């Protein structure tokens, strides 16, 4: 228990020490949005009769009538009060939008990462066991294919084959069939909420909606995961302890899984953490193709229409997620290799 307590204290300290970085991100994004060309007020006042008066009014509504330093002060004090501003696009508070959309993105990213890991680790291990063999080349080819096909292409292809041609997949729009009623919201993860509500049919519906987008995202990240697995397995298979383990006649399974893989897992965790953070932000194309109501497509729409508040809110969210993921990665390190502890 003391070990866990110490870990928690250290984790807390790590979180605190990341606050300056978050603040920097906050100010930087704020300034960046202001120097981008394009006046959001003019864009939003695009009704057939919107004139100067309407533009001024929107400017006031968005707080753009004040000087940039003043705006920054107001913005920071708003953030201090937990207010991320209001989106012009959806008309909702940004915090509410992000809170509703983050679970969708997280669920998709987790599912994709899970699929990618389930596929990539065995592929990497198999390739490492027979380096240079036909299997190794096969894995390399598969990885190259996955990484060179952009997610929106694989997404559209999957939709074309599984939805349009075969009719196996449900229509690729959003997280759930529009005719299914939603479970009471607890975690925001549909696949969990349906189970909590005891609605198996709904759970199926949510899962099958998740499969195609998750697979198209997973395909893209299998390559880095499989390559890292292969490389670190090669190192670990060639090391002294594996040779020793083999020489004392342990079973093949025990040697590969318990000794080699356990020691090769650290770099895989690191890469998985990085892959997760990038996927969360970068899955915008998948979210677009599958009309997935996630944060990335929300941020892109906001960026295109110079809707400042959502973009700033999104960047802050991503920075926080990145900090959290790094922390989780470090904790996982500690579990996988007790010699490493976070500090």
């Amino acid at each position, binding site marked *: 228990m003391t070990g866990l307590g110490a870990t928690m204290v250290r984790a807390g300290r790590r979180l605190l020490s990341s606050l300056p970085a978050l603040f920097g991100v906050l100010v930087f994004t704020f300034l960046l949005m202001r120097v981008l060309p*394009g*006046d*959001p007020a*003019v*864009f*939003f*006042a695009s*009704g*057939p*009769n*919107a*004139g*100067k*008066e*309407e*533009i001024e*009014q*929107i400017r006031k*509504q968005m707080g753009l009538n004040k000087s940039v330093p003043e705006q920054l002060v107001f913005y920071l004090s708003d953030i201090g009060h937990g207010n991320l501003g209001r989106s012009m*696009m*959806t*008309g*909702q508070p940004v915090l509410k*939008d992000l809170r*509703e959309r983050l679970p969708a993105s997280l669920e998709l990213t987790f599912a994709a990462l899970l*699929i990618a890991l389930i596929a990539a680790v*065995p*592929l990497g291990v198999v390739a490492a066991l027979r380096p240079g063999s036909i299997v190794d080349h096969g*894995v390399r080819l598969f990885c190259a294919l996955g990484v060179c096909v952009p997610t929106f292409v694989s997404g*559209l292809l999957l*939709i074309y084959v*599984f*939805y*349009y041609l075969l*009719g*196996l*997949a*449900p*229509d*690729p*729009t*959003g997280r759930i069939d*529009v*005719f299914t009623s939603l479970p009471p919201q607890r975690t925001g993860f549909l696949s969990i909420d349906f189970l909590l509500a005891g609605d198996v*049919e709904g759970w*199926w519906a949510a899962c*099958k909606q998740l*499969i195609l987008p998750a697979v198209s995202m*997973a395909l893209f990240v*299998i390559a880095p995961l499989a390559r890292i697995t292969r490389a670190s397995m090669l190192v670990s298979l060639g090391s002294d302890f594996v040779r020793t383990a083999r020489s004392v006649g342990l079973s093949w399974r025990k040697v590969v899984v318990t000794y080699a893989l356990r020691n090769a897992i650290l770099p895989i965790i690191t890469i998985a953490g990085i892959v997760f953070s990038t996927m969360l932000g970068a899955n915008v194309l998948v979210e*677009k*193709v599958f*009309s997935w*109501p996630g944060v990335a*497509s*929300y941020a892109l*729409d906001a960026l*295109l*229409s*110079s809707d400042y508040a959502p973009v700033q809110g999104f960047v802050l969210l991503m920075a926080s997620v990145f900090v959290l993921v790094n922390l989780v990665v470090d904790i996982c390190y500690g579990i996988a290799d007790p010699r490493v502890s976070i500090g």
Partner: protein
Amino acid sequence: MRFVSFRPASSVIATVALLLVANAPSQAQTRAETLRYVTGASVNTLDPNIPGSTRESFALSMSTYDRLVAFGRKQLNGKWVFDLDKITGELAESYDVSPDGLKLTFRLRKDAKFQDGSPVTAEDVKWSLDRCVTAPILGKAQLLTGSLTSADQFKVIDPFTIEVTLPKPDKLALPNLATVYPMIINSKMAKEHATADDPWATAWLKEHTAGSGAYVVETFKPGEQVILKRSEDWNRGSPDKPAFFKRVIVQSVPEPATRANLVERGDADIVVDLQASDVQSLEAKGKLKVVSTPQYNAITFVSMNNQMPPFDNVNVRRAIAFALPYDDMFKAALFGRGAPLFGANWPDGKPLNGIYPFQAPVKIDLDKAREYLKAAGLPEGFSTTFSFNVGQASTAEPMAALVKESLAKIGIKVDIQKLPDAQMSTQINEKKLPLFTEGIVAWLPSTDYFYRNFYTGNQRWNYSSINNPELAAIAQEARFEADKAKYEEDGRKLNAIHFSEMPQIPLWQPNQDAVMASSIEGYTYEFHRQVDYRDVSRK
């Protein structure tokens, strides 16, 4: 190669598909009574008056709220379109226009009820119209175009009669009341949610409806979907009965290819904003109903900044007008899906009629273009930029390439500029673009309205920044012209000035391609360019 990840995935999909097929019949029954409409953008407010509201929000408000009056419909080349000249009652049972054209009297239906069950009274109408011209909302600028500017103009005569007074007989006053903004709100409900800062309850109405319309909002998820339920009391449609569909789902599907797939697979019932190439292939397959209507209140054009050299020289503008490869552009951008506004034949060199937009006698003629350039003193040509916004890239990009290629032949070097939408609108507002393409839409497509809004004044919608006192004077005069023949004459004059000054070059009216299941009937092209859910029914 081993596709390890595919096997479990596809077998799960197969199992699930079996489950789906098993319970398909029970779903089918509710499907028949549900309209699923997929769009590219999303409904972002329940009150269309909020700055920044989308077209999808306009369509939604048309069926959650009623207005005093509505546009009728007419057939144009066999397709149903809204009719600007036929105004019918919606909440008004009947209306009168006084002989001098200064007083409009509306008698309300006595059986009309708001969705909370309370009757619609003249007080509610007065409050709603007052809100429209007083509150800082979009309706204000729109109603201005119909001489409706102050709350004093609306007078309650008795609980079911309201009178509107006009300073001048304005033929756009009545049609303005049929547009999106002057919807009639349950004033009692709205007042309960008004605050000192927000006396017109704009914040509350953005997320709540208090209307008397054909549909009630069931769930509203901005950016994703809106689900509507039919209001059984509503009887303002033409056959005096509730709207056809029991439920309407308006869903945002940003990817156009996915929208096309959905409607083709029969999962969506109707979609309007597809890519021209998808529409063409869906039409060729012949399984779906495709209703293509030229957007007769919209125009795509190439505009030039008339205040900026060298486009301040009329001969340069004429040179451009005769150097554009119209046919190729029309095919590349729209696959020919629309009504061309070029290549007309004016036998005596005069406009054929006073209707705007008109088909101009321009076609590609590089020799003529070179002559005009010489007359402008620029025989060697010049360099310029051609801009368009990212949002229109699918049509504007191929166009831009053709413009560049063709203008190069007469010595004009063109740099193509693809701008993010917000940046493009800012540059247009600041009048910084020399040569660009844009599209415009007018809700009330009458000649004088087009000319006043898009060709006069130092304002954003005067894209070409033309400053022609004669044109401005005629357009102002025509607004209040009651005599039809004189109005037509004014229109001809305006069109003649347009052609000789060539401030911008109208190209075409793109089609609105509505693709729908073959069982859907009654689709009408509406002024807001969205599907009015009340129009459609299933066979």
